[in-house]
């Protein structure tokens, strides 16, 4: 029996490895997806005043800090029992759109476009963003420009592109200045044009990947994500909806505080990443997917004109429920378009310059849960505090964690189809990594708790024999 280890997986955010077990005939028997890092935020936040949590937890990530910032602020607001002023909600929504745009652009252009444009089997030395710049300079420039638009929008609102302190529990700490609004609006048409031509390009090449579409996590699972009052796409607020593999609604309009009734978290021995599952289906059968693919599967429509046209075409191509995780890429591009349109609509509202942007309160509840849609899927921050406002317990359920079980199954499916242990080629293993990239996992975000994961230490002699092992 042989084992293939891909360590580290490249062009993803964070650190992980994949183990592929082969039988004597070189066929894949099993696969494992290991997240090999540990962060510890949930533990070292204990004792901190709760209102510091947004700025502490946003440091979890440099790519999606805004998601942690907003979700944490919402959890704090549940503790404060305050209603955030409507202008502040809109400002947060704009900032969130900016982040989804830049994060999705990073995933598509910088991390996955080398596979899509240069080919899964192309020379690995050139199969990266530098290779894309060489072969497709306009697309590379577009990717950089789109990411810059998203980052500049965040900076225009919050003063900083990464880790801004502008969002505070209760709202934001400064209203929007008209000049900054105008600057974002002026840059918006270019971002829209880039997204539209990238969507056209993607649709022109997607049919080349029929084999990958067939085996990249093309399995029935549940899907989860937030919806607004009309059942449309909602990234900042709203209620959680679960649908089954056929598209039937299983749970609808779930209140944030009820999430523990439906979502359980399992620990797995080979990874620092916990595996959330749908409780009613149990572990490990309660697999659900979150993120762009899931969101476009659960919603009635996007709610903006251009994105809705793309949404209709998307489902005409892939059916009512797009099942292959390959379609994360397409869904991601549609969400970028939706966010640009959403930003435009919000910025054109004169009320966006309102001066009342913050509510104040102390501790009015001893527990608070915040939920939002991060670029990679549903993100949950859950805090408990004492009466003085010190954090006594924290649990973060990260978007990538929600996809953990689905990622594991997808890797298994891809490996079984593409990997042949007798004539191993780079393109085979690249496809195993590419299915992970389709989820755009952020593993540095996803591992937090400490002290509850099984850790095994092995003492191995020079011949590879295990002399001793210790488990915690």
């Amino acid at each position, binding site marked *: 029996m042989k084992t293939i280890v891909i360590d580290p997986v490249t062009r993803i955010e964070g650190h992980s490895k994949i183990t592929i077990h082969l039988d004597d005939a070189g066929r894949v028997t099993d696969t494992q997806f290991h997240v090999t890092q540990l962060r510890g935020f949930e533990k070292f936040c204990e004792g901190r*005043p709760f209102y510091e949590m947004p700025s*502490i937890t946003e440091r979890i990530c440099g790519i999606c800090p805004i998601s942690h910032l907003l979700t944490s602020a919402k959890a704090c607001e549940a503790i404060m029992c305050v209603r955030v002023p409507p202008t502040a909600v809109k400002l947060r929504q704009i900032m969130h759109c900016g982040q989804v745009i830049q994060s999705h652009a990073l995933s598509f252009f910088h991390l996955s476009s080398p596979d899509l444009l240069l080919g899964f089997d192309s020379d690995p030395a050139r199969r990266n963003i530098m290779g894309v710049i060489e072969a497709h300079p306009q697309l590379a420039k577009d990717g950089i420009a789109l990411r810059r638009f998203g980052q500049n929008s965040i900076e225009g609102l919050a003063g900083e592109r990464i880790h801004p302190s502008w969002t505070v529990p209760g709202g934001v700490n400064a209203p929007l200045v008209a000049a900054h609004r105008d600057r974002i609006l002026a840059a918006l048409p270019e971002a829209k044009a880039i997204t539209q031509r990238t969507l056209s390009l993607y649709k022109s090449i997607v049919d080349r990947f029929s084999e990958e579409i067939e085996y990249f996590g093309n399995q029935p699972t549940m899907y989860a994500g937030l919806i607004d009052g009309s059942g449309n796409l909602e990234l900042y607020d709203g209620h959680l909806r679960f649908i089954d593999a056929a598209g039937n609604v299983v749970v609808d309009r779930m209140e944030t505080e009820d999430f523990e009734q439906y979502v359980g978290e399992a620990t797995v021995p080979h990874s620092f990443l916990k595996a959330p599952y749908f409780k009613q289906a149990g572990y490990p059968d309660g697999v659900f997917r979150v993120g762009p693919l899931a969101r476009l599967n659960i919603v009635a429509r996007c709610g903006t004109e251009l994105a809705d046209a793309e949404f209709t075409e998307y489902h005409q191509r892939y059916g009512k429920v797009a099942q292959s995780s390959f379609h994360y890429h397409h869904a991601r591009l549609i969400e970028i378009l939706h966010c640009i349109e959403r930003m435009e609509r919000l910025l054109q509202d004169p009320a966006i310059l309102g001066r009342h942007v913050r509510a104040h309160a102390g501790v009015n509840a001893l527990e608070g849960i915040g939920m939002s849609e991060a670029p990679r899927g549903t993100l949950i921050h859950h805090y408990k505090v004492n009466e003085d406002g010190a954090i006594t317990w924290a649990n973060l359920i990260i978007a990538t964690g929600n996809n953990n079980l689905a990622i594991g199954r997808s890797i298994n499916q891809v490996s079984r189809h593409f990997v042949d242990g007798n004539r191993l080629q780079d393109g085979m293993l690249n496809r195993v990594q590419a299915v992970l990239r389709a989820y755009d996992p952020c593993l540095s975000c996803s591992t937090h708790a400490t002290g509850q994961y099984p850790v095994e230490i092995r003492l191995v002699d020079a011949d590879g024999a295990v002399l001793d092992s210790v488990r915690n």
Partner: protein
Amino acid sequence: MSQQISVRIDNELYTATEGRTILQVAADNGRSIPTLCYLEGLSAPGSCRLCLVEVAGVGRLLPACTTPARSGMSVTTNSDALAHNRLMALELLFIERNHVCSVCVSNGHCELQSMAQRLGMTHVHLPYNFPRLPVDVSHPRFVLDHNRCILCSRCVRVCDEIEGAQVWDISARGINSMLVAELDRPWGEAQSCTSCGKCVQVCPTGALVEKGQAVEEMTKRNRIVTDLAVKRGART
């Protein structure tokens, strides 16, 4: 009438009133010597050691905040050796506790942080202590975070000398020193505290802060103490 004396500071000759400290004479003449524990309007403990200066004929460094200027004295406030000493003193403050600027409510408004920038502190050359320290959130309006305390004792002095409540003290010795309210009880239970907030306003870091201030939001107004002292004629 106080006697006028002549003092040489960094080779410039200045006339000063007898009784003024080296720090005050320097400040009177537009020369700024780095300080952290010193605050105009409060007594000077000379404990942070940032204002150490060289005095000709004296074999050791002297704190400018507590050393009276004397006639004929020749003082050096800037030299390579002093810069080295100040940086070392500052680095020792940084390693002692947990100063994480990026997630601090005083980020951007912190005297310790500003001093590091002023003195050009780019690295800390000693290993950090990373002590496990509590955060006292028991007071309804204020927070004491021991992680960010540099034991400058401004809070102790302002509470004693200006407010007259004497809530604060420093307990234990050396590395074990801790700021304590009354006889080491949670701040929220300190019966002598008037909740005036002067200690918060004079604290140079994010150790004493207003409750509910998010990261980067805590700005201090330590001039109120100086102004109060001047109005009362206690110190100038």
